[in-house]
């Protein structure tokens, strides 16, 4: 009986380790290739560790005149952080209003917001493109961030979270003469902190990951995000795979670092709420 259990456990662990290797291999391969000199990359031999270790590829990522990767990083950070701040502003404030106030059409408006939750940007990209063009925001960073300054999931999640805050607390603040804006800022915001962190991570990842919309809006390299920059590298006549891997690894890093740091919180929030990332 004991023997059988040990056998089962070993089998289980073996299965998990095999699977883990498959899952991790592409990351490992990108990382190890990014440290290989070009001569080692273009060979038919399977070289698992770089024989000659070089950081030249990483230097080359930032040395391209036609494709300034440092700028692409900056652009990606600007639109991801900018859109996230707006998303927080709109989510927390309207989450509070939908949670703690009653007014006519409330349920209808909330349902309208929820109804669009599943709709991807591809469905309405053409008219949105024309609106952005008419606003003169084509080929600008604000234009690239525009679709993400509001997020149905954020409003929904914040409302659910603020529902948990007891009304007595808010009434106490009101009796003390707090204005609603101050309650929003000084009572709601600190109490909804974990929801705010969750939504920030999701929003940042969504924008950092975005590709379809930037592809439509960006027209020259000055506003490229890292994702667009990567495909630009790809279109070069001579593809330098080592440089490509270094660039790919660097641009995958920010969301992954956030995940590794806030792992527990992210997994728990998804576990608890079925939030989609």
């Amino acid at each position, binding site marked *: 009986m004991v023997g059988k259990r040990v056998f089962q456990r070993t089998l289980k662990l073996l299965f998990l380790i095999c699977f*883990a290797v498959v*899952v991790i291999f*592409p*990351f490992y*391969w*990108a990382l190890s*290739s990014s440290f290989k000199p070009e001569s080692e990359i*273009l060979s*038919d*031999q*399977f070289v698992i560790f770089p024989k000659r270790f070089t950081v030249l590829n990483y230097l080359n990522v930032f040395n391209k005149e036609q494709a300034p990767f440092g700028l692409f990083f900056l652009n990606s950070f600007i639109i991801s952080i900018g859109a996230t701040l707006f998303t927080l502003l709109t989510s927390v*404030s*309207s989450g509070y209003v939908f949670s703690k*106030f009653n007014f006519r059409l409330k349920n209808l*408006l909330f349902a*309208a*917001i929820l109804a*669009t939750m599943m*709709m*991807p940007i*591809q*469905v*309405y*990209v*053409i*008219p*949105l*493109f*024309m*609106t952005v063009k*008419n606003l003169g925001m084509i080929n600008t960073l604000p234009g690239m961030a*525009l679709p993400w*300054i*509001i997020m149905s999931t954020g*409003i929904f999640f914040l409302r659910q979270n603020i529902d948990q805050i007891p009304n007595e607390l808010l009434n106490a603040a009101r009796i003390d003469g707090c204005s*609603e*804006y101050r309650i929003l800022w000084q009572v709601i915001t600190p109490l909804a902190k974990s929801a705010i962190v969750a939504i920030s991570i999701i929003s940042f990842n969504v924008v950092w*990951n975005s*590709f*379809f919309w930037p592809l439509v809006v960006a027209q020259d390299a000055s506003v490229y995000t*890292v*994702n667009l920059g*990567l*495909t630009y590298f*790809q*279109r070069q006549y001579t*593809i330098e*795979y080592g440089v*490509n891997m270094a660039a*790919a690894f660097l*641009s*995958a890093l920010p*969301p*992954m670092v956030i*995940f590794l740091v806030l792992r527990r919180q992210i*997994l728990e929030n*998804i*576990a608890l709420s*079925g939030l*989609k990332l």
Partner: protein
Amino acid sequence: MEKLIFFGQFAVVAVLSIVTFAIILAKPMSAVRRKQLLFVASILVPVLAIFFIVRIYPMLQTLIISLFKYDPIRPVKPFRGLGNYVQLFTRDEQFQQSMRNTLLFAGITVPVNMLIGLCLALVLQRRFRGSSFFESLFFIPYIAPIVPMAIVWQWMYAADGVFNQIILALGAGKVAWMSLHTALYSIMIMFIWQMNGYLMLIFLVGLRGIPDMYYEVASIDGANWWVQFTRVTLPLLRPITLYGLIVATLWAFMVFSQVFVMTQGSDVAPGAAVQVLVLDIYQKGFTYRKMGLASAEAVMLLLIILVITLAQLRLGKAKE
């Protein structure tokens, strides 16, 4: 017409905002209530205005544009009625090919993804030392951005990429991973690798939510593993399974970045063999400037998503 449509949305927003504030100010009510409503309006009016301009209005416009022959640089935009839809289904080989490809993509990735996710979750169901490590590890591909990972995979699939290196080392011949006939399947493998972690996680949440009591009762009754799985686990997992099914299906119908990135610069770029729905919308609308036709296709996508989401609501309700 374009100007009218453009200014129309701001006019609608302006009128609705003014009416809202006018009603609040004009209607007889207590001062406290009025102050409260003014606060509500001061938050919701801007939020809903943005929401209207970046979501609702573009969706309505998609419906309208799909009825026109719409080239943004031509001043005349002739009305075609349902002509664009008729064209899609009768003459547009490109669209029909991309529809077939997308259906194939969904038909394969959805069941495989669900099955692998469920298997992993079953293995990880009972916590043990190191289980949370594996959970996080399997979730990492889902967290990693799509485009860089697609570039990594494209290179692994290349003629002298690592997959062929391994195959050569094992003594077999090279495989053309990104040829006309194989590219779509290679992309599916990458897609499943990338998305699976999420399904694993939600299955895990579902499995761990099943009280131990049920299993204990089942074992006392002498139920073996398979009976427990089919009589206890699967029925109780039904809501999660349904949710996972919907999510996986939506992903498959919306696939774009992987296909776009991985077929660039290969033999198949961007040939009909790997054409998928969203890629076709992009090319029609922004490469060939056939925005009317592209909008009609976007409406088809909208309908598909709507049907899937409504099916979820229906099925979810039916069993409760």
